[in-house]
């Protein structure tokens, strides 16, 4: 929506920057959420294998993935904190009116987050001194805490989509709050499982994709094979499941948020025998320009019959539904998500077929090219899924109860644009540095794998940034360094 159109529709001028800023910060935060939710699990799987089978290659993978986890978790925690600030900085009126109704989910999330922060610290810093199995078991709460955290966040988001658990008094304020109803809203179940599985399969494809690139470049050792197989198998198993969950959530939206469904499928008028459009652009007069039209398919997908009635966008006044531009955006992201999801199923089947027949990876280079691409593609689907659900809800911040424009802060548009500018610059720097640091770490590991000595350009202080703590008398007496750390006298130890 251009600012001219915003003015014409009577929206406050600060709405546009507030929406852009929220979209930007959420859109970037969500890029690292899959790793945050699922990387601990994937790491623990190889870690378990390493301990169980005394496998040094698996152990090395677990160690390296946990080094990446350290940086990724830190960036996730700070960008996540910004989001909780933004609830107040951008949408104070939503929190002022509804905070007590739907805030409890966040309360659960905060404690889950606490557990995550504690156990990730123990796991990341426990490699050297904890006993191997103790260390492993102290990592096990991590994936569980992540699932609990997702419970809180998705609970709150699902409430915004299908709010319930309150009645409105004469002044329009919520009373008679029922917490159980506000947490377990109609969209909660479908959203939660779709989200969790999306996080796991995305993290799986992203990690596997990195080793697929190494494989394509000729690094075909056991290290790369294991690094590819574990995450890829997890993702491949979940992909068909996600297909059903995705289909389910679409049908739930059809029943519970018909206008969002109409936007995602660009259905203009309510009716039966509704065609399905692949892409295409919705015009202000309700026609669709471009795209591929498949007769009757939308009705069939929504209700298994050509006679299924699908609610159109015009079933509600123009001010209560997404604009044509927003509907087109939600539709495109929905289609991209569904397309990539379907393509990933083919990839998973290819992998499964070869594994069943030969107990080995596919030999084709094309398989690994696709696998490398799958990492990026699944991140795109996460982004698309998020855009579909958030843009499809417009203009409501609390569906049918509060408009985004009524929730926005009274702060001036100029101040918000300034904040937006600052945040973009800061995030570009932080994410750029994050990617740079991870790439440099991986390059260092590659050099080490090839047996190359460290290049001389590294200065003396740069040897190992922070060496081991000097052993305490108690720790020294308690026993020799654990078998995991044969190099207790690593260079760079504190003098």
């Amino acid at each position, binding site marked *: 929506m251009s600012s001219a159109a915003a003015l014409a529709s009577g929206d406050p001028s600060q709405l546009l920057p507030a929406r852009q800023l929220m979209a930007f910060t959420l859109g970037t935060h969500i890029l690292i959420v899959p790793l945050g939710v699922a990387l601990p699990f994937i790491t623990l799987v190889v870690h378990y294998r390493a301990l169980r089978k005394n496998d040094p*290659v698996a*152990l*090395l993978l677990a*160690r390296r993935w946990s080094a990446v986890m*350290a*940086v990724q978790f*830190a960036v996730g*925690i700070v960008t*996540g*904190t910004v989001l909780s*600030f933004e609830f107040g*900085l951008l949408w104070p*009126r939503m*929190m*002022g*009116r509804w*905070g*007590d*109704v739907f*805030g*409890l989910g*966040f*309360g659960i999330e*905060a*404690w889950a*987050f*606490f557990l995550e922060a504690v156990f990730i*610290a123990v796991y*990341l*810093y*426990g*490699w050297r*001194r*904890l006993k191997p199995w103790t260390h492993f078991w102290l990592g096990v709460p991590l994936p569980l805490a992540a699932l609990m955290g997702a419970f809180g966040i998705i609970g709150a988001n699902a409430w915004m989509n299908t709010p319930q658990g309150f009645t409105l008094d004469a002044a329009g304020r*919520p*009373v008679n*709050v029922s*917490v159980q109803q506000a947490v377990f809203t109609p969209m909660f179940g479908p959203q939660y499982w779709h989200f969790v599985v999306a996080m796991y399969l995305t993290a799986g494809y992203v990690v596997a994709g990195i080793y697929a690139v190494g494989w394509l470049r000729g690094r075909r050792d056991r*290290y790369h094979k294991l690094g590819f197989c574990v995450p890829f198998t997890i993702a491949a198993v979940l992909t068909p499941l996600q297909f059903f969950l995705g289909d389910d959530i679409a049908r739930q939206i059809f029943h519970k948020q018909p206008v969002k469904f109409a936007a995602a499928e660009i259905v203009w008028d309510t009716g039966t025998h509704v065609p399905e459009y692949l892409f295409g652009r919705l015009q202000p007069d309700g026609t669709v320009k471009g795209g591929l039209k498949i007769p009757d398919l939308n009705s069939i997908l929504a209700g298994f019959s050509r006679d299924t009635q699908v609610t159109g966008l015009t079933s509600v006044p123009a001010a209560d539904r997404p604009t044509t531009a927003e509907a087109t955006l939600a539709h495109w992201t929905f289609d991209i998500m569904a397309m990539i999801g379907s393509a990933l199923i083919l990839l998973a089947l290819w992998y499964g077929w070869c594994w069943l027949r030969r107990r080995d990876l596919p030999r084709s280079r094309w398989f690994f090219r696709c696998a490398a691409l799958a990492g990026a593609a699944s991140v795109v689907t996460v982004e698309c899924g998020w855009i579909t659900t958030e843009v499809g809800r417009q203009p409501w911040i609390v569906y049918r109860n509060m408009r985004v424009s009524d929730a926005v*802060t009274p*702060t001036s548009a100029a*101040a918000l644009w300034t*904040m937006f500018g*600052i945040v973009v610059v*800061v*995030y570009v720097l932080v994410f750029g540095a*994050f990617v740079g640091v991870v790439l440099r770490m991986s390059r*260092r590991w590659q050099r080490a*794998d090839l047996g190359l000595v460290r290049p001389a350009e*590294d200065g003396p202080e*740069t040897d*190992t*940034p922070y060496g081991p*703590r000097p052993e*305490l008398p108690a*720790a020294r007496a308690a026993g020799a360094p654990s078998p995991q*750390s044969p*190099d207790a006298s*690593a260079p760079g130890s504190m*003098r």
Partner: protein
Amino acid sequence: MTADAVAWILLLAVAAYACGGGIDYGAGFWDLFAGGAERGERPRRLIDHAMAPVWETNNVWLVFVLILMWTGFPVFFEAVFSAMWPPLVLAAVGLVLRGAGFALRKPTRRLARRRIYGAAFAVCSLLTPFFLGAAAGGVASGRAAPGVTASAEVWANATSVVAGLLAIAATAFLGAVFLTADARRFGEPDLVVYFRLRAWCSLVAVGVLALIGLSVTRKHTTYVYHGLTHGFGLLLVLLSIAAAAATALLIGTHAPGWARYTSVASVALVIAAWGVAQRPYLVPTSLTVQQAAGATKPLQWLMLVTAIALVLVGPALVLLYRLDTHGMLEAQTDADVERGAAQGQR
């Protein structure tokens, strides 16, 4: 009743963040003033070792504070974030740069890059508590009343500035006390002396700022001033002063570890005194706890969730701090993730 209980939980969470987060901000403060790459290397190493395993946990208290605010006292949350917009934006930006700077410095090798990350971390360790303190000062002086929009007067007044500076000084004090104890733990006697001196200096700074603060608040923050100088509030302030004095003595002994407890007590007692002085208001004289409270049922559930979580998180926190203070937590070095490779290939 329920609202009062949740208000006390909120105050506890604020105190926990002021202490837990404060120690980390203080470590960042001393990182900033540790000198050049060579001179500051050893203090910085110590700071890094001490902070690395616990800073993320300490940060989560802030998220918990925000959630308690909007679930327990939605109207208060709306008022504070509308009135205190500029300092809270700057604090949020500071939080990002600080956390990212700290986390990215570790796996970086080249000195120039580490300097940049370190500078972001250290500078923001100063700015973030300042702006959070300024916002708190604005609340205490009653300027964050419902309906007030952000303006310079609301947060850039004498009370807010003094509160911001006091926040910096208090974090520097906490940081120095904990680093003194850490220096002893890691067997670095000269760093014990180094940080002990800084702990004393920052305590003096806290005292001076507190006196200035009292004279400022007397005029502009009358309600809280009265609460702090009378009755139960005064008692807590005196106890806090006693704890600070005990810290100053303990840190000079051979067991500076005990000073950690007294320093945390002194800061927590000041926060408690502030809470007592504000009673029954969340924003003095315009918004009471009862007026700001959300619906009763969610508040009861919030207490239940808090209780369950205490059972889960409490032991986890104890485990973390125990492992940390017993030297069981230690970062992997590059050697750990590099040397194994050659063996793995075979």
